[in-house]
């Protein structure tokens, strides 16, 4: 079932440009130049129920603008958008009942109150029936392991604890769609894993459709089966993670741990890209030479202790996409 349908969405902002320096500021008083920024330049996509979609792009690409349009707090200039059959900005309140949102850099909890009181307030705001609320709340508390700090005012929580509370807060009204805007930003490794596990299980077990924007490619790799890349308001690629890889490069990496002494590896079909003590990483094109052939040649020629073949990390892929965008 199609849950979200976006067609040709356009949003422009007019930004007043100020020239630098004092003289620039004075000139700005008399005459202000406006520059039109196309935050969304005709984007289209559909999302089915139960998908977990990664939405990535450089800073200022239009990710958050899309999320804001989908959640009804931003009115686009043109284009169509339907979430569960409703146009979000025309039906903001009805739409709000079916969506949950977490902005990683901001909290929706009341700063001075313990998280549990924020939850109770949200129950009143969303008018969740008492029994449903208690069941959902207790389940979320259990899964996110919040019990030990529920009574602490939110301002005293660590970032990881706060983020877990924020996630719980966004799901108390049992939304069918969840927008996560950089949910792991600034978190330590353990908290990141906890957040990812939780998002995955909510998606699988409750069939909550998730749209995730992030700069952390590990999030994408761990969670998303579909990735959309956006830049300057246009969608550049939309497909599986493997598809995304293939659009950039088909190369694979062979990492070799050498026995002592050996410092150089060379092969006509592979190129050394890093050399760190006894660990050497080579890159090769599997269309040109098979991994098996390359490995047998190298193990025959050099004293190898261990080796493994992998895809280039998604970080590298995305960095290359972004670098190409700038050219």
């Amino acid at each position: 079932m199609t849950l979200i349908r976006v067609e040709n969405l356009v949003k422009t902002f007019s930004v007043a440009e100020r020239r630098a320096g004092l003289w620039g500021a004075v000139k700005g008083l008399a005459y202000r130049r406006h520059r039109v920024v196309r935050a969304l330049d005709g984007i289209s996509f559909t999302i089915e129920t139960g998908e977990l979609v990664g939405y990535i792009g450089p800073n200022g690409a239009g990710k958050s603008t899309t999320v804001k349009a989908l959640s009804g707090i931003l009115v686009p200039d043109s284009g169509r958008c339907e979430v569960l059959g409703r146009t979000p900005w025309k039906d903001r309140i009805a739409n709000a009942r079916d969506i949950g949102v977490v902005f990683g850099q901001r909290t929706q909890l009341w700063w001075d109150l313990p998280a549990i009181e924020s939850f109770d307030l949200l129950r009143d705001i969303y008018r969740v029936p008492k029994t449903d609320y208690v069941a959902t709340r207790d389940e979320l508390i259990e899964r996110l392991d919040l019990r030990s700090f529920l009574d602490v005012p939110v301002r005293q929580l660590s970032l990881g604890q706060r983020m877990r509370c924020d996630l719980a807060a966004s799901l108390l009204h049992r939304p069918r769609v969840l927008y996560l805007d950089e949910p792991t930003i600034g978190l330590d490794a353990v908290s990141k894993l906890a957040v990812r596990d939780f998002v995955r299980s909510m998606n699988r077990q409750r069939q909550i459709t998730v749209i995730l924007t992030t700069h952390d490619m590990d999030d994408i790799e761990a969670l998303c089966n579909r990735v959309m890349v956006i830049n300057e308001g246009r969608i550049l690629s939309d497909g599986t993670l493997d598809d995304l890889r293939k659009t950039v490069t088909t190369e694979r990496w062979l990492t070799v741990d050498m026995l002592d002494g050996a410092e150089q590896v060379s092969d006509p079909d592979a190129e050394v890209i890093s050399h760190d003590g006894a660990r050497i990483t080579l890159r090769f094109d599997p269309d040109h030479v098979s991994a098996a052939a390359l490995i047998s040649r190298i193990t025959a020629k050099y004293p190898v202790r261990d080796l493994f073949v992998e895809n280039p990390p998604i970080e590298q892929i995305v960095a290359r996409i972004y670098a190409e965008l700038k050219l």
Partner: protein
Amino acid sequence: MRGYWAIFSARCRTLLQYRAAALAGLGTQIFWGWVRVMVFYAFYQSSSAVQPMTLEQVVSYIWLGQATLLILLYGVDTDVVAMIRSGTVAYEMLRPMDVYSLWYARAVALRTAPVLMRAVPMFILAGLFFGLQPPASLAAGCLWAVSTVVSVLLASALGTLMTVTMLWTIAGDGIMRLVYSATFIFSGSIIPLPMFPSWMQPLLNFLPFRGMADVPFRLYTGNIPPSAGAIAIAHQLAWTLVLIICGRWLLARGTRRLVVQGG
């Protein structure tokens, strides 16, 4: 309605935490009230002209003003302004609620909890020691109570309107100070409105500000007789309605052009 009530009561609970501030404020306000009472004593002693209010009425008027000063003192809701600046305001718009009503509920809370916390001890102290008289009559007392509630609604409507303008100006200290000063002068919080020159009276009677202080105080002291109470309260309600309509209209325009800061 339950959601708005929940916001209102949560806000009140938060505000009631500031007990030390309330106590310090109480001390300051008693001091200033006392100074102003003394000024009027001196004025009445040295003037033989017939004044529009009796000295007893002026003294009660001043203490009522000190007790409910906080209805006026809060202009914009600084929490909402902080949210607008930081972009957290996006969360407010993500709730299945009417944003104006949400902010209005917050504004009413801001003018209820702190006011109650100071007004009650102020009444007791001023009544026992500083010359605050009881209401002129039972009817005057009832009208004063109703009018005070309406004054909270009126001041909240003005406050919410000012908060909404923050969507445009972000740092709106200029307009805030202007409205602030106008509120203090034209509500009678500095000099009781009947003491203003007679040529200013039609203007003062027209403006919304008197509904935030002068009207309830004069109803209390009987300076506005209970027979004229209905008209005075109707004036307050009319302005409340006008300011709410303005605020709603402005907010509807503001959210359409809203660029949530950051990201």
